């Protein structure tokens, strides 16, 4: 008990020690800033997304949807509303997520032909999002607290950070390395290493634009480096701080998609 208190005191005192002005920010601060920049721009936002999914044989499928996002707090809970437009067999379906920090996300799927609100088990976030090479976690963000972070390189442009999962069995990767733009704190690319030590997955931001003052990825790509195949996402009609009400992310608006989602 005494030791614990001593450690706590020591830990607390560390904050009082002045850091030298030019030193690199702490790795956890970089990750936190990146998480905010990449997933919490503005208080809310919307975008039209067009995905090209190309399989290992070169066959192409497309997905088109509008996505709405609302933050309960920066770095905290979020709500997502995904309204499908293409292909026609999934048209008007809605996928809704309440992203939680301390427990599994809540997910719903609305099937208009049956007028059915289905709740989806959401324990595994590292499965394909709508058949693409993106995972659910790529769309809604991986909680920084699930990994330990290590700054392995720093150059003029990027912080290079290696992330290792705290619970190794909970994910398919052994580690992943992210290149973070020092100016914007936006991730430029992420390389995933599997448990055999092979580089098997690459996620990259192909084009970025500043929209309403927020650096925004407008084209991104995920490539399967072992089996082949890739998905390219393009984002358009992006706007932030549009004043989305919290009740849009409830059952009422699954039956009655709001204008913001349909247009």
């Amino acid at each position, binding site marked *: 008990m005494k030791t614990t208190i001593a450690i706590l005191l020591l830990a607390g005192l560390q904050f009082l020690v002045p850091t030298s002005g030019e030193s690199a920010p702490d790795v956890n601060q970089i990750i936190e800033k990146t998480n905010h920049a990449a997933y919490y721009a503005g208080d809310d936002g919307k975008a039209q997304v067009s995905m090209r*999914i190309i*399989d290992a044989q070169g066959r192409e*499928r*497309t997905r088109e949807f509008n996505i709405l996002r609302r933050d309960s707090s920066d770095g905290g809970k979020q709500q997502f509303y995904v309204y499908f437009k*293409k*292909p*026609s*067999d999934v*048209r*008007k379906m809605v996928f809704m997520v*309440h992203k939680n920090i301390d*427990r*599994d996300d*809540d997910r719903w799927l609305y099937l208009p*032909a*049956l*007028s*059915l*609100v289905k*709740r*989806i*088990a*959401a*324990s*595994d976030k590292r*499965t*394909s999002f*709508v*058949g*693409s090479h993106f995972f659910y976690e790529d769309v809604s963000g991986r909680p920084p607290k699930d990994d330990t972070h290590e700054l392995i390189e720093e150059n003029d442009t990027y912080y290079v950070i290696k992330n290792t999962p705290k619970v190794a069995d909970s994910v398919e990767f052994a580690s992943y390395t992210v290149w973070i733009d020092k100016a914007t704190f936006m991730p430029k690319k992420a390389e995933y290493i599997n448990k055999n030590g092979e580089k098997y997955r690459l996620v990259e931001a192909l084009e970025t634009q500043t929209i309403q003052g927020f650096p925004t990825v407008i084209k991104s790509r995920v490539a399967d480096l072992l089996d082949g*195949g890739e998905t390219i996402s393009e984002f358009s009609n992006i706007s932030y701080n549009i004043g989305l009400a919290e*009740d849009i992310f*409830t*059952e*009422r608006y699954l*039956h*009655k998609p709001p204008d913001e989602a*349909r247009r």
Partner: protein
Amino acid sequence: MIKFSLPIVVFLLFCITPQQVLATLRDTLYDDYRTDFYSFVEVRNGWRVDRNQDEKDASIAESRLQVALSTDLSKAIVKFKGDLVGDLVEEESRAELRDLSISFSPLNNVDVIAGRQIITWGTGDLVFINDLFAKDWESFFIGRDTEYLKAPSDALKTSIFFDAVNLDLVYMPVFHGSQFIDGTRISYWNNLSSKTGDRSLTVLDEDRNRFGNDSEFAARLSKNISATELALYIYSGFWQTPEGVNSTTWNLIYPRLSVYGLSLRAPLLGGIANFETGYYDSRQDPDGDNGFVRNSEIRFLVGFEHELGTDFTGAFQYYLELKQDYDAYERSFSGVKSDDEYRHLLTARLTKLLMNQNLSLSLFSYYSPSDHDAYLRPKANYKLTDQWALEAGGNIFIGKDDQTFFGQFEDNTNIYTSLRWSY
């Protein structure tokens, strides 16, 4: 022959119409009339595996064109969805209107939908307790798309959203009931004749169609507490399938029914758990001693869904029907073979997605340990492209006795395939 080949002609027309023309039509409708357009054409064929009764070899043989339009009038949305069907089993072509409704919000916290519409609520997976809206069991058993299990209701649906709770009120001025198994396409156990009924012994039922008098009313009060969804239900109307007999004409009738229920759905142990119960008050048989009307029942459902692996989901349910006033029920049958007091039913759903989720393999199975019967629904759906989808599946009935719920359909075991083009 010409009559029911119309949808086939339309199908061929669709297939040869350049997609560019359709794309232009869609854009024009959307830009100039704020109207959204969707369509599919489908051919679906199925066969009985072992035919013993007087039913056709083909369980399903139809081509279908569906057109859906929705127009945004800014203060209201008008929806239309209709099917044209060329049906070689029933040797007819027909038009089916699935949706013709207007939805609007007269007040900030009120949504109204008036007209023909599909209504669904409750927590069961292909098991229904408090969802007493019309179903089409024939479509379900012959292998039409799951969409057709839900039959449309002509209703006025009002939803009111308060801070504390939400209230849905549904009024259906004329009762239609569910499309039940009557022998025309699927043979069934005919209790009155104590033998299996088929095309030569179809069910005669007495419609309830007096406007206002034969109306149905359903309400749901719902609330979410954190991630837990709670709901209370009331229904006042009729048994959806003819669960009574007119003792003078010996035709089947739809006795009066009220249902009071509740449901709960919440995340549990990394999955989703659901619980639902309902008391079925068979109002024309209050003491359970009327052998011509089905007894009151308590129904109970508990289910759990969990991911079993990547893109692999398993869901399990236990369902119970408990007959009330069972002694009186048995006496009213005086020695004739009657139903058990308890009907237990287990369901399991396994779904696996493969090939970038373009191939979906699923198996839904019902098994009743009390009735000693089972019903299996295997299905494979492959999306050849974003437009074309190929499907194959089966409806397999297994039973020890001829008169149990699934056992009676044993001779109707069928397999089917379909090809659908959606635009």
